[in-house]
C-alpha cells in the first residue's frame, strides 16, 4: 500500500524533539507551574467561568470541569485524572465533570512531550501535574474568599467545594467565588496536600463516564455526524506493499447513494451518502493490484527464515557470566523453541476518522491515542499549519495501541479522502478492513537452551529472540533503538530478575514488510510467556516446585517476590485440588508495575481445557482508584487468555487468512474464569496498570496445563484439543 510506504518515511520525525520522547523526568511535587496555561484561554478572557489553568474550569453553578489530556479508551482516565485534581482542589466530587482536551502543546504528555496516550503511563505521569492544577485553583479560590471577607487567607480552609473562614464559620461555594477568582493572577508556586489527607485518591469511586456508556449517548468516532457529511469506504491492496494497477468504477458509481469514486494513496475510496451505499460501491469495484514484493509471502517460509536467523549470533541484549561456557558444565540441559504469531488489536470499534477540510482550517473527529503526531500528519497532507488543524478526540471503542500509530495511517488516509470529497467525510473501516489493515503485534520466534546444576538449581540460560522491530523506520527509532536493539522486542528479557549466574539474551531483528505496532503490553506480551514457561521447565528439570524455585531466584527482588507470594497464598498454592485440576504460576514486571498470577485449570479426558480461576496480585505502587485497577486487571487477563487460546494472523500468498471474529475469535463470557485481583498497598512510585495484567495470563495457564497433563505449551495460540 502506498500509504504504508509513504508513512514509513520518518516525515513526522523532524518536527518532534526526539530526544524528549523518553526523557523520564517527572516534575517534583510543589514545583513551579510552567507551561501550564493555554494561550488564548487566560482567566480574564472568560469572566463568568474561573479558568485558572489549562486543566480545570469552575462555573458559577459550582460545576468543576476537568480537562483531560489523555484519551479515554476504557482504562478510566476520565475518572482517575479528575480524582487527582479534585482531591487537591477539595472539590465536591458530585459536581466534577470531564472534558477531553483539544490538541495543544500545553496538553503534552509530561514524560513523552507530545499529546498521546500509551505505555500505561497516563495516571502516574500526570499525577503531579493534575495535583498542581487543582492546588493552584484552590489557592486562588481561597484568596478570592479572603479578599471578599477582608480576612487573612491563612485563616481560611477548603472543604467539599467550599471555602470556609474558620474563625467566623463563614462559607462561600466555589461557584460563588468563580467570578472573583477569575480576576486574580494565578500563583507561581503552590503547596500540595500531605498524601495522608487525600480524600478521593485511593478510593474505588465510580467512573464518571459510566452513564453515557449505559444509555447509548456516548459519542465514539464512528458516531460523529456533522452537517453535509458523507461516508467513505476504501478498497486497499490485499497484499502489503501492493499498488493500484487499474480500477473500473462503473458498477460502483451505479449504486444508489454513491457520490464519487477517487484514488487515494492507500487505494480507492468510494464516497457515498452513507455506509451501506459506500460499502456496496466498494464491493462493486473491479480492481487490479500490482501486488509487489510481498505477493508470495507466507507464514511457513517466514517461520523457516526466523528459525535460521535464531541459529546465527544476535545482538546482545543481556549478558551475565558466561552462558556458552557454562552450558557444558550443567548437570541437566533442556532446549526449546517458543513461538507467537502476528496479532490484531481487534478493538470493538473498527478504525474510523471524520474530517471537515476547508481552505484555511481543518477539523478532525476521531478516537486517537496520538494527537500530536496525527495533527502533524494531517497538516502536512492538507498543506496547513498544525495550529490550523484541530482534532476532537472522541471516546475510543478500545485502543490497545492500534490508535497510537507513528504512521497516522487512519488519519492520513481520511485526509486524502477529504481532499477529494469536497465535503465533510467520515471514513469507516469494516471489521475485515481493520483486521487486514496491518500494524500488528509482531510474530516472534524464541530459541532457548538452559541447564541446572547437580542440586537442580538453574545454572545457565541462553536465549535468542527473532522478530521485527516495532519502531524501525519511524520517528521513534532513534530514541528506542539502542545498539541496534529495539527495546520493545526484548523488554522483560533484558531485565530478567531471576538470579541465574550465566545468562545471555540475543536479539535478531527481522526485516519483513508486514506493518507492526505496539499491542497491549507490547514486548511483554511474548517475553513473559516464554520466560515464565521456560523457568517452569527448569523447575521441572531440576525437580523443584515452580513457586519455590521462583521464590528462591527472586530473593533479591522484593516487589516481584511480594506479588508472587501474595498470588500463591490467595490461590492456595500447594493445597489439594479435585482430580483433573491443576495450578500454574507466573510472575512478571512491566510498565513499572509487578504482577503475579495463579491459574487453575481443568483438562477433561477429551483434552478440553477449562480455566476455572485466575488469582492476580498486582503492585503498581501508589494508586488512585482500586475499582478501576480491578477492572483493568480482569480485562487484561481476558485479553491475555484470548491470545493464549485463540488468535493468530497467518499469511498465504501475501494475504492474511483471517478476517473477522468467526476465524479470529475473542474469549466470551461463558469461557471467562473467576478472576480475583489483590492489590498491594504501599508508597512505592506509581507504575502502570492498563497493560501489566496481560503478560502473566498465558504462561500461568500454560504452566497449569503442564501440571495437569505433563504437556508443555510452547506455541501460541494453544490449540485446545491438540494440547494434550
Amino acid at each position, binding site marked *: 500500500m502506498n500509504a504504508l510506504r509513504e508513512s514509513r518515511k520518518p516525515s513526522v520525525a523532524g518536527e518532534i524533539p526526539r530526544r524528549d520522547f523518553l526523557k523520564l523526568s517527572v516534575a517534583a511535587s510543589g514545583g513551579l507551574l510552567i507551561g501550564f496555561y493555554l494561550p488564548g484561554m487566560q482567566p480574564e478572557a472568560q469572566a463568568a467561568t474561573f479558568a485558572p489553568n489549562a486543566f480545570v474550569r469552575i462555573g458559577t453553578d459550582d460545576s468543576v470541569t476537568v480537562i483531560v489530556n489523555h484519551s479515554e479508551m476504557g482504562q478510566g482516565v476520565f475518572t482517575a485524572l479528575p480524582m487527582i485534581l479534585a482531591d487537591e482542589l477539595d472539590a465536591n466530587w458530585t459536581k466534577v465533570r470531564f472534558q477531553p482536551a483539544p490538541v495543544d502543546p500545553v496538553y503534552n504528555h509530561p514524560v513523552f512531550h507530545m499529546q498521546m496516550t500509551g505505555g500505561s503511563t497516563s495516571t502516574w505521569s500526570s499525577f503531579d501535574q493534575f495535583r498542581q492544577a487543582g492546588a493552584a485553583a484552590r489557592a486562588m479560590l481561597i484568596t478570592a474568599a479572603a479578599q471578599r471577607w477582608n480576612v487573612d487567607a491563612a485563616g481560611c480552609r477548603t472543604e467539599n467545594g467550599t471555602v470556609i473562614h474558620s474563625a467566623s464559620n463563614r462559607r462561600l461555594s466555589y461557584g460563588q467565588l468563580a467570578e472573583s477568582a477569575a480576576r486574580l493572577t494565578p500563583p507561581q508556586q503552590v503547596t500540595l496536600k500531605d498524601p495522608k489527607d487525600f480524600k478521593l485518591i485511593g478510593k474505588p469511586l465510580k467512573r464518571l463516564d459510566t452513564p453515557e456508556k*449505559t444509555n447509548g449517548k456516548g459519542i465514539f468516532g464512528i458516531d460523529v455526524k456533522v452537517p453535509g457529511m458523507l461516508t467513505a469506504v476504501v478498497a486497499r491492496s490485499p497484499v502489503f506493499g501492493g499498488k493500484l494497477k487499474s480500477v473500473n468504477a462503473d458498477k460502483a458509481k451505479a449504486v444508489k447513494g454513491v457520490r464519487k469514486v477517487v484514488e487515494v494513496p492507500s487505494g480507492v475510496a468510494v464516497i457515498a451518502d452513507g455506509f*451501506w451505499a459506500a460499502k*456496496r460501491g466498494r464491493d462493486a469495484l473491479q480492481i487490479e493490484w500490482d501486488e509487489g514484493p510481498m505477493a508470495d509471502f507466507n507464514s511457513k517460509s517466514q517461520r523457516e527464515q526466523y528459525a535460521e536467523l535464531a541459529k546465527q549470533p544476535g545482538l546482545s541484549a543481556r549478558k551475565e557470566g558466561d552462558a556458552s561456557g557454562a552450558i557444558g558444565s550443567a548437570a541437566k540441559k533442556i532446549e526449546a523453541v517458543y513461538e507467537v504469531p502476528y496479532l490484531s488489536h*481487534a478493538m*470493538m*470499534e473498527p478504525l474510523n476518522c471524520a474530517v471537515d477540510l476547508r481552505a484555511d482550517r481543518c477539523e478532525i473527529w476521531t478516537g486517537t491515542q496520538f494527537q500530536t503526531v496525527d495533527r502533524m500528519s494531517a497538516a502536512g497532507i492538507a498543506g496547513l499549519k498544525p495550529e490550523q488543524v484541530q482534532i476532537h478526540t472522541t471516546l475510543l471503542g478500545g485502543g490497545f495501541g492500534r490508535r497510537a500509530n507513528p504512521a497516522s495511517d487512519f488519519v492520513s488516509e481520511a485526509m486524502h479522502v477529504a481532499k477529494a470529497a469536497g465535503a465533510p467525510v467520515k471514513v469507516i473501516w469494516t471489521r475485515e478492513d481493520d483486521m487486514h489493515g496491518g500494524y500488528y503485534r509482531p510474530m516472534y520466534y524464541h530459541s532457548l537452551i538452559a541447564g541446572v546444576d547437580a542440586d537442580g538449581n538453574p545454572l545457565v540460560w541462553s536465549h535468542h529472540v527473532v522478530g521485527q522491530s516495532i519502531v524501525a523506520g519511524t520517528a521513534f527509532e532513534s530514541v528506542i533503538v539502542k545498539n541496534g536493539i529495539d527495546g520493545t522486542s526484548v523488554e522483560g528479557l533484558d531485565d530478567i530478575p531471576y538470579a541465574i549466574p550465566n545468562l545471555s539474551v540475543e536479539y535478531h531483528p527481522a526485516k519483513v514488510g508486514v506493518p507492526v505496532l505496539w499491542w497491549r503490553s507490547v514486548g511483554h506480551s511474548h517475553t513473559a510467556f516464554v520466560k515464565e514457561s521456560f523457568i517452569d521447565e527448569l523447575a521441572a528439570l531440576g525437580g523443584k516446585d515452580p513457586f519455590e524455585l521462583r521464590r528462591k531466584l527472586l530473593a533479591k527482588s522484593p516487589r516481584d517476590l511480594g506479588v508472587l507470594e501474595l498470588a500463591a497464598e490467595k490461590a492456595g498454592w500447594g493445597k489439594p485440588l479435585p482430580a483433573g485440576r491443576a495450578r500454574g504460576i507466573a510472575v512478571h514486571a512491566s510498565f513499572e508495575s509487578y504482577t503475579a498470577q495463579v491459574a487453575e485449570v481443568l483438562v477433561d479426558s477429551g483434552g478440553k481445557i477449562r480455566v476455572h480461576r485466575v488469582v492476580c496480585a498486582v503492585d503498581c505502587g501508589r494508586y488512585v482508584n482500586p475499582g478501576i485497577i480491578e*477492572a483493568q486487571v*480482569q480485562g487484561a487477563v481476558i485479553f491475555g487468555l484470548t491470545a493464549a487460546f485463540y488468535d493468530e494472523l497467518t499469511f498465504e500468498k501475501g494475504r492474511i487468512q483471517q478476517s473477522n471474529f468467526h476465524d479470529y475469535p475473542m474469549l466470551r*463470557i461463558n469461557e*471467562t474464569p473467576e478472576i480475583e485481583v489483590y492489590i498491594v498497598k504501599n508508597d512505592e512510585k506509581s507504575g502502570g496498570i492498563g497493560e501489566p495484567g496481560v503478560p502473566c495470563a498465558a504462561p500461568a495457564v500454560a504452566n497449569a496445563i503442564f501440571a495437569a497433563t505433563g504437556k508443555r505449551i510452547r506455541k501460541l495460540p494453544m490449540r485446545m484439543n491438540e494440547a494434550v
Partner: protein
Amino acid sequence: MISFSVNKRRVNVDVDPSTPLLWVLRENLELTGTKYGCGMAQCGACTVHIDGQAVRSCVAPVTRAAGKEVTTIEGLSPDLSHPLQRAWLEIDVPQCGYCQSGQIMSAAVLLKEIPNPTDEDIDQALTGNICRCGTYPRIRRAVHRAAEMMAQGGGR
C-alpha cells in the same frame, strides 16, 4: 418507504431494502447507541429488540422491521432507570463502553424470559456479545444485581 416503530415512535424510511437495520438506525434515525462491530452477527454490538426479541441488526435487513416495534438502547429507559442500567451504574461495568449497548439489550431479553438467571443462563444469553475490554466478570454481577432489583419491585 418502509414503516415501523422505534422506541415507540412511528418512522418511515426511504432506503434500499437490503440496508441492514443497524445503518438505518444509526444514520437515518441518528440513534448511534447501537454499534457496528463485525457486520456478520459475531459480536453482538448491534443488538436491538424487534417485537421483544434480541436481533443482530447488522445482518437484519431493514425490511425485517417493517410493521414491527424496534427498541434500541435509547428506548430502554429515558433516564437510566431500567434495572439493568441501574445495576450497570452500581457495578460500574463499562470500560471503553462500545459493546455495552449490545450487552444490555441482550441481557434485557434474558431477564424478561428468566427473571432470576443462574450464571449458566447469563453465559448462554450473552455468549453472542463480545467485550474486548473483558468486562464479563462485572457484567455477570450486574445482571444478577438487576434481577435482584426487579425481584424487589424495581422492575418494569
